[in-house]
């Protein structure tokens, strides 16, 4: 059916190899894209999805090379083109949006300069009309003061804004195909929904096809017409989104679908009395020091009160910059509140003398790549917290480390490894182990899974649940990933601009959100949910319900 249509892009038996004798990064990949169609390449890191897309636009990084296959864009065979011809196609016919908005715009050039670049290269427009075109585009994407924006530099915009601008400058050339490589992975939920919405709007207007690369299946299935699931460089399954969702054939696709979180059945928290009582905490970041003068302090957390019972998991959600991380860091003593109290078992842990109590609170950090000392072996990392436990012999310590290694699902052979020899998921396990080895009563988990692949996320969440049952710690789970939150939290606290706007049980907050911000957050998330009968439902967007008809 697809074959009879004139495809916009046709990829046939594409193979990409690392170097001359290296493994295949892309192995015999074939798919077609019709004009205006949205095709998603889904897979985990290292599955070859990015390399496949880069091969299309002729931008493979050096050791990678196309060893065989065909890449047809309309009537043109891209592989045969010399670099001169390929440059004419890049930008003009194939546009690309990259993952990291913080580095994909040149910080030393104004937005206007960067938007004009493509137009100068690929069109004969004069400077005046280039400027007009850029202005219209900026207005189109909802930049209020477009005139000023043209003369502004990238650092004046937030990540979401930069990605919008990036998108605008790419779409200015009206490409027939847009390659979007994880365009929203680095953004928080709200900005994510915003950028995706804009991307769909612009491409629909111009009839541009989108090759959407993502590891986030639930995001992709909401928007794509067709999904190609990749693993180890091979396409394990491809087909219409609906078909993939409702009748996955490959085991791996099923595994991915299973990794979609659903609301968990949680044991109720053990304690009734609050373990931690955060009372009217306000935290300000000092303003920048100018010559003889300080700019006013920035209030990150504003009069927040929150209780966590023993064994309870409270999720703290909100957009980036909402102060949720700062609040979490204040509990473990990494930032000092300027007002308020944090009571741990009734003891104010902000006072220096109450170190023993403060050490009962431990933290798991977001980025497993940077949270482990690259020069320390795993056993050294795990034993370090025990330095502060009095009365442990070296055998005791060794025993504790062994136990923890087993509990976090790593064997003893990992003890002598270095962090760089571990995968992201394994590292995060070590980070969890380090937080737990001293048996703390409270764990602050700061976005512990957002840097991981989907199936790994699921494993880590499962591990976390199991460890919580075993160790019985209470947890403040900071996340913007609402799906994960729904699965493991007893209660949810929503933060906006440093204020707590809503607190309630998970069911209450997810089913009957009260505050408008909570509602926005929920609708921006991709709560693709698997129902008991095997069908899927998009919450809050009931119109888009997909159900199975047997």
């Amino acid at each position, binding site marked *: 059916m697809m074959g009879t249509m004139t495809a916009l892009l046709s990829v046939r038996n594409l193979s990409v190899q690392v170097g001359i004798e290296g493994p295949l990064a892309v192995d015999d990949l074939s798919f077609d894209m019709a004009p205006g169609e949205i095709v998603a390449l889904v897979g985990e890191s290292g599955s070859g999805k990015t390399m496949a897309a880069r091969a299309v636009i002729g931008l493979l990084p050096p050791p990678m090379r196309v060893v065989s296959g065909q890449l047809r864009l309309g009537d043109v065979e891209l592989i045969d083109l010399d670099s001169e011809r390929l440059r004419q196609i890049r930008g003009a016919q194939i546009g690309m949006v990259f993952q990291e908005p913080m580095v994909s715009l040149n910080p030393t050039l104004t937005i206007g300069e960067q938007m004009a670049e493509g137009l100068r290269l690929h069109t004969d427009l004069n400077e005046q009309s280039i400027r007009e075109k850029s202005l219209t585009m900026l207005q189109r994407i909802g930049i209020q003061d477009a005139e000023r924006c043209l003369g502004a530099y990238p650092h004046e915009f937030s990540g979401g804004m930069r990605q919008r601008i990036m998108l605008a400058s790419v779409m200015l050339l009206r490409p027939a195909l847009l390659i979007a490589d994880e365009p929203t992975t680095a953004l928080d939920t709200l900005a994510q929904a915003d950028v995706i919405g804009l991307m769909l709007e612009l491409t629909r207007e111009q009839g541009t096809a989108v090759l959407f690369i993502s590891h986030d299946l639930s995001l992709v299935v909401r928007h794509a017409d067709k999904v190609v699931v990749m693993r180890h460089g091979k396409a394990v399954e491809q087909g219409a989104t609906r078909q993939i969702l409702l009748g996955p054939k490959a085991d791996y696709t099923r595994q991915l679908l299973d990794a979609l979180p659903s609301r968990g059945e949680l044991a109720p928290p053990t304690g009734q009395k609050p373990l931690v009582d955060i009372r009217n905490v306000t935290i300000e970041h000092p303003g920048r020091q100018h010559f003889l003068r300080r700019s006013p302090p920035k209030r990150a957390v504003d009069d927040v009160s929150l209780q966590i019972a023993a064994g309870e998991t409270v999720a703290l959600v909100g957009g980036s910059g909402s102060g949720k991380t700062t609040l979490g*860091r204040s509990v*473990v*003593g*990494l930032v000092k509140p300027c007002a308020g109290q944090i009571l741990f078992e009734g003891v104010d842990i902000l006072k220096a003398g109450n*170190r023993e109590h*403060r*050490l009962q*609170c*431990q*933290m798991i*950090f*977001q*980025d497993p790549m*940077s*949270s*482990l*000392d*690259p*020069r*320390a072996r795993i056993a050294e990392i795990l034993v*370090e*917290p025990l*330095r*502060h436990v009095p009365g442990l012999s070296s055998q005791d310590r060794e025993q504790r480390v062994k136990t923890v290694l*087993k509990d976090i*699902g*790593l*064997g003893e052979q*990992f003890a002598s*490894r*270095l962090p*760089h*020899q*571990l*995968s992201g998921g*394994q590292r995060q*396990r070590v*980070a969890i182990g*380090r937080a737990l080895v001293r048996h703390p009563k409270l764990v602050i988990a700061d976005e512990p899974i957002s840097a991981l692949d989907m199936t790994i996320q699921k*494993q880590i969440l*499962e*591990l976390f649940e*199991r460890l919580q049952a075993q160790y019985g710690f209470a947890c403040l789970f900071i996340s913007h990933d609402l799906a994960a939150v729904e699965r493991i939290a007893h209660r949810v606290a929503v933060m906006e601009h440093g204020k707590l706007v809503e607190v309630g049980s998970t069911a209450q907050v997810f089913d009957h959100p009260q505050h408008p911000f909570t509602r926005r957050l929920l609708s921006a998330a991709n709560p693709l949910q698997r129902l008991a009968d095997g069908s899927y439902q998009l919450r809050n967007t009931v119109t888009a319900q997909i159900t199975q008809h047997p």
Partner: protein
Amino acid sequence: MKSLSETVVAAPAAPLRRGRKIPSFNALIGGTLIALLILLALMGTVWTPYDPLKLDLMHRFNPPSWAHWLGTDEFGRDVLSRIIIGAKTSMWISLLTVTFAITAGTLIGLVAGYMRGWTDRLLMMVNDAMLAFPGILLALGLLAIVGASQYGIVLALGIAYTPAVVRVVRSTVLSLREREFIEASRVIGNSELYTMLKHIAPNCVTPLIVLATSMFGWAILSESALSFLGLGVPPPAATWGNMLASSRPYLATATWLGFFPGLFIALALIGINLFGDALRDRLDPRMSQ
């Protein structure tokens, strides 16, 4: 539950780099060069072909021959003997200078980078003021105070080189500070000092080795520049630097006088740089196995 942990253990670990059992090419060449030069220096303490200080006015400016392998200088002294004797002085001075600068610079840089605030601002103000002087000028001034001697040179050059080390260490510390494992160490309850010594200092080693190896070269050359200005190791004692310096007037007529000390300086630098590269790879957990 059990199956979960089992699947995880069975999951392949991140691929290990192929073990590097044979020392690398760099380590081999660099190590051999350094070993030979050290042997040469040690030999000089017990035996040299001729007395390096003995004048022989009958045989001035002899080109290399069987009797004098590397020729004789303007006073008829044997160049080879002087190079052998000079090896010890030159390498010893450079080694001490580098050690001094690295130690002092690392300490100051660690403190400045980790404490930040006023400590940092004050230390860096002094440091940047020192950096603003050309190193050799600073050393000259210091030498004028402490007087020209072997250890005077070490002190003067060491102080002159310290600011560069401070800069490198401080910037490394500043970037390390933002990494989450430093925060993790604080959350665990480790003291600032422990965090600094255990987690920050070791991670500064890589840039320091690169700096130290190039500084070794600067030190040899600066010592020769100081000798040239009359503030180096005073004659008649031989160092590679002052041999090079005193050969200048005769460069056109007696090339070997400048060529051989220069060759040995170059060999020492090549050896140390290669060895430094190998050492850096060895000490970096991401590169070695």
